[in-house]
């Protein structure tokens, strides 16, 4: 269309393709105008990307290691290493680490990463920056399941299973309600999710109303506020497979998530099976969120906050955004949970902290970057 365009482009690109690395012009060499800038930008960008990937991967690891050393029974890095490998001569340190701290840190990593991935996916799916992992009512459903289990005096494992079932049931109901005689639209799904959420919240209130105010009500309320204190290998074994499975599916589909915010016809015309893609995303996010609630109650804010922070920093491409959200979310929840258990003698409910820490960070970023879009 523009014959001039092609010629110009080749002239600009050629030096970059032809010159071997050693002959690359250095600063001060005679260069065409703009060439130096381009070389710098190109090498700079690749380097920057590799660096940010490394930082992102190290972030949760470092946070986890730091968290393992902190607490009432504090450990030095050396002690941590010997206790982890079992070479130390302090059996108490090993017990604290392996049975209390490690499962809790692992839980925080998994929940933080999982909820962030689910939030990112739902924001794309609903093309709405306000979507959270709970948009289809999964958290309310799972909470109702858990509250029912606590009301009926079940053991922890049974409560967990009920929570998982409640979450899946809520999303299944949402799915059924939104499938009218017309075709299923994303807006009706959000509305149906809203209805299910309020219905299940009402039922939770009912459970609380009939619960024994001396023994059951406090435990139900505490569960609903969310806490990682009950983490142990048993509950992890039950919940983690769902959580890891869901997160793996979202990571695998991350590039396809970019298609979801497009209009219906546009998305279909890319040749993707849109219904299958939407179903897979909803299933994966539901499994993640239900598993999270089943293990540690409702942890608010992470699924909304982390994807947005990452979006402001890493841009809107889900191919990068999903892994970044998983890493940042995992690190964030480990840090917040560490604060929750070390700040005061009694533990602070984690949802309170995620909001108190998250909101100012969010506002600061918002003001600096001037907002976001999907």
């Amino acid at each position, binding site marked *: *269309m*523009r014959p001039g*365009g*092609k010629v110009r*482009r080749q002239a600009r690109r050629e030096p970059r393709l032809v010159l071997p690395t050693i002959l690359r012009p250095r600063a001060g060499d005679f260069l065409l105008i703009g060439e130096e800038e381009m070389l710098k930008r190109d090498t700079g960008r690749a380097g920057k990307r590799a660096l940010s990937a490394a930082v992102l991967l190290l972030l949760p690891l470092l946070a986890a290691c730091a968290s393992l050393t902190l607490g009432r029974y504090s450990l030095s890095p050396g002690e941590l290493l010997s206790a982890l490998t079992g070479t130390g001569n302090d059996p108490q340190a090993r017990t604290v680490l392996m049975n209390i701290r490690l499962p809790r840190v692992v839980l925080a990593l998994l929940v933080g990463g999982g909820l962030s991935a689910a939030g990112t996916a739902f924001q794309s799916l609903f*093309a709405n920056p306000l979507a959270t992992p709970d948009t289809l009512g999964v958290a309310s459903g799972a909470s109702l399941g858990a509250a029912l289990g606590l009301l009926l005096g079940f053991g922890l494992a049974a409560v967990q299973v009920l929570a998982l079932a409640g979450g899946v049931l809520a999303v299944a109901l949402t799915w059924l309600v939104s499938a009218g005689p017309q075709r299923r639209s994303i807006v009706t799904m959000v509305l149906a999710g809203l209805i299910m959420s309020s219905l299940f919240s009402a039922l939770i209130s009912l459970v609380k109303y009939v619960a024994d105010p001396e023994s059951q009500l406090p435990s139900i309320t505490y569960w609903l506020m969310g806490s990682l204190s009950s983490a142990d290998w048993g509950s992890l074994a039950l919940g983690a497979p769902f959580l890891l499975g869901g997160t793996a599916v979202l990571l*695998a*589909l*991350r*590039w*396809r998530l*970019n*298609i979801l*915010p*497009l*209009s219906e*016809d*546009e998305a*279909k*015309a*890319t*040749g*993707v*099976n849109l219904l*299958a*893609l939407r179903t897979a995303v909803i299933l994966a996010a539901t499994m993640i969120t239900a598993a999270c609630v089943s293990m540690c109650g409702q942890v608010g804010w992470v699924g909304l906050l982390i994807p947005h922070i990452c*979006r402001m920093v890493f*841009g*809107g*491409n889900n*191919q990068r955004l999903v892994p970044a959200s998983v890493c940042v979310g995992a690190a964030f929840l480990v840090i917040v949970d560490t604060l929750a258990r070390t700040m005061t003698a009694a533990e602070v409910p984690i949802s309170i902290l995620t909001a108190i820490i998250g909101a100012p960070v969010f506002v600061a970023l918002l003001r600096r970057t001037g907002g*976001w*879009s*999907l």
Partner: protein
Amino acid sequence: MKFEVRNGCFAYREGARQILNGVSFALEPGELTAVLGPNGAGKTTLLRCMTGLLPWRSGASLIDGEDIRAMRRAALWRRLAYVPQARGTASALRVKEMVLLGRSGRLSALSQPSREDARKAGEAIERLGLEGLRGRLCSQLSGGELQMVLIARALAAEPEMLVLDEPESNLDFKNQLIILETLSDLAAKGMTCVFNTHYPSHALQRAHRSLLLGRDGSWRFGASDSVITEKSIASAFGVRAVIGEIETPHNIYRDILPVSLLTMELDTPAEPVREETDMETRIAIIGIIVEDREAAERINELLHEFGEYVVGRMGMPYPPKNVSIISVIVDAPEDVISALSGRLGMLRGVSIKTTYSKR
């Protein structure tokens, strides 16, 4: 690839007004086809039905004789690409990322785009001369830029046919021209292109064939010059329009101008105007200057197609300017002559002028 619609019918509900009524047409590679009609006539519905985004009530779309409903979705969208109207997007994707999405139909569900896919997307960007936009956010593009990006995204899928929904609506003169030039160019390179348009003049000037939809479910399909006439426009749009020619030193452009309303009521279909066929023929000389060697062959094909009307032809090369000068004499009904000269004028590197006899 040969694309065909056979007896396509569509209504939104059982028993509701039949929007598309037994539409049948076939599209050839390298042809640009315009779909015209008043608001609510079903232009977009037609595009959605013919690509399978909306199911026909009855009838079928066929690619090389195969019903598209029998084709696998990914396989279909590898041959066909749909370009939606650019209404502004909330997408925070960058242009190169948006164009890369066009590769989706060629990737398996769980895979990430490869270097090869990125290269193909890059080629699509270069093909439309959008290199400067590569790193820009789609949400910050102008309407014309975004439309070009969406076309690039469609091209990234390496389709054989492009279906565009009002690509030049809401754009200024220059951007309209860029889009139309792009379409003509793609068609000239063998792409089958179909586009919806609100501008009959774009169809007259650019499209080889046109499909005119009426609000009463009527339709006509054929060479643009024979479909878009003052009478057919009056019956489909309820508007009196005149078709005239604007002469420039290089070419004659046919244009259509709406002059007055036939009915004052909004959007009521006008009485269908019966068209009496004009059997009287006239003699005309079409003078042609060919600056592009490739066009010579297309001219021969066209003259063959209109062979029955051609009375005589003369041609001579003029080496100093590297052009050929041809003169064709035809004896044909007026609309046939204007169809022939219109189609000749659409070829690249061809200047023409037609002189008619008085009677």
